[in-house]
């Protein structure tokens, strides 16, 4: 019986091969959720660098140079695992379904996105991108207890534009240290 089905299959294949027409036609099967080339969404990306920190192949690198930040994906090194897409808080990076990546020139195989950097108001060293700082402000204001919202908003406007070193140094001087909330008793 097995032999008969095998012969039937061979005869069917004789006139109807299963081969796709790929290079001369479109790829027949691109499954939904195919992990192809990762791409930045320029409108949504805030340049926080979470993707670079979580990249398992270290294919995404973040570089601050002068007053601009560059995020670059070297997709010759990417393993298309999708960690960056998972970790991104703003859906600013996503894996497209583009898989035809073969090239003759390795140096061209880089996707970059650039951001301006906000300088620290005290010392002038870069803090982060304006989009990132704005996002931090809105996220905090959305989630904070409304009874201390005004106070926190005031603190944020004071320290958000400082670099991390300066925030640490000036926290008592500006009275932004969270310590002041510790002793407060909430009326339950």
């Amino acid at each position, binding site marked *: 019986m097995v032999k008969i089905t095998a012969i039937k299959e061979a005869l069917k294949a004789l006139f109807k*091969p299963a081969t796709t027409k790929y290079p001369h036609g479109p790829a027949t099967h691109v499954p939904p959720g195919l992990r192809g080339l990762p791409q930045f969404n320029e409108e949504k990306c805030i340049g926080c660098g979470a993707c670079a920190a979580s990249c398992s192949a270290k294919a995404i690198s973040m570089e601050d140079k002068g007053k601009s930040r560059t995020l670059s994906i070297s997709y010759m090194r990417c393993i298309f695992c999708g960690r960056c897409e998972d970790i991104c808080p703003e859906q600013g990076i996503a894996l497209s379904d583009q898989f035809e990546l073969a090239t003759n020139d390795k140096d061209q195989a880089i996707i970059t996105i650039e951001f301006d950097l906000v300088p620290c108001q005290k010392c002038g060293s870069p803090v982060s991108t304006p989009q990132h700082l704005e996002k931090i402000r809105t996220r905090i204001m959305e989630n904070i207890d409304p009874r201390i919202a005004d106070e926190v908003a005031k603190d944020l406007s004071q320290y958000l534009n400082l670099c991390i070193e300066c925030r640490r140094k000036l926290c008592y001087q500006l009275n932004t240290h969270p310590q002041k909330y510790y002793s407060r008793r909430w009326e339950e």
Partner: protein
Amino acid sequence: MFDILIVVGFYFAAIGLAFIFSWLAYWLFRKLSARLQARRGPPFYQPIADIIKLFGKERFIPKLAHKTIYILAPLIALSAILVLCFMIPPGVTYLPGILSWDLIVILYFSVIFSIAFVIAGWASGSPWGKIGASREVAILLSVELPLAIAMLIPSLALSRFGFGLSLSITTVIAAQMGLFLWILPNWFLFHYPLAAIALFLSLLTKSWMRPFGDIPEAEQEIFAGPLTEYGGPLLGIFELARLFRFYVFSALFVNLYLGGGDGLIFPFDILIFLFKCLIIVILMTIIHVASARYRISHVFKWLFTILLVLALISLIRVMVGF
């Protein structure tokens, strides 16, 4: 002078016919095996593109190789197979030929063709080549005996059909005209079916097809066997020589056991001969695709027990006159 011109012209025509047939047969072989595996297969110019490409590659001789034999081996193979091409008539009896289409000479040159691969393997100085050559020798030793007996049975049986003792293929073709048992054509296939099976399987083995013949160049085990160290134009000559095997071995079987051109008038006899050859190639291809490769010891056993017994039974029948 005029006779020589006719003979020379016939040689070139025979080689041209053999080349075109082998080209299409090799393409059919690859296309059909692709189609049987549900693939699309290569286009028809594939064999010729392969050979042209090989002739355009870098020339190269390995340091460990025996230089003279390394270069001579492909030439020996090509010349042996070209001699075979015009030693085997295209299914007709009326063409001029030297040596009167002698079966012994055909047997001889078919052995030389295999020997060329053996010395190629030994001369190339590579362990894979040597393993391939030793396997080729083992195949050669086991296949030649059934092949020789099965090839000579038609000529031994000629006296039963009212012909004198002859070793010529044309006489064998002439003996196969007419009818057998009122309906069947008077082919040796129907008189000696066991010998026909033995000849078919030994020709299959000689033309590197599975289940037996694939062993010397088993690419999963020993890369390319005797041809491992060959590359460029010398490999191109080998590929060209191997291309002709489709014509030579199928033509041999058709002439000896399938009645050649059946004695029709001029263009039709050659056409029906080529059609029969094509059927043989298709049959070989299907067997090649459908079967797996045997181990070398099993091949030895198979060829020596089954094929030799098949051939010997027919030989005894011929000798006894039964």
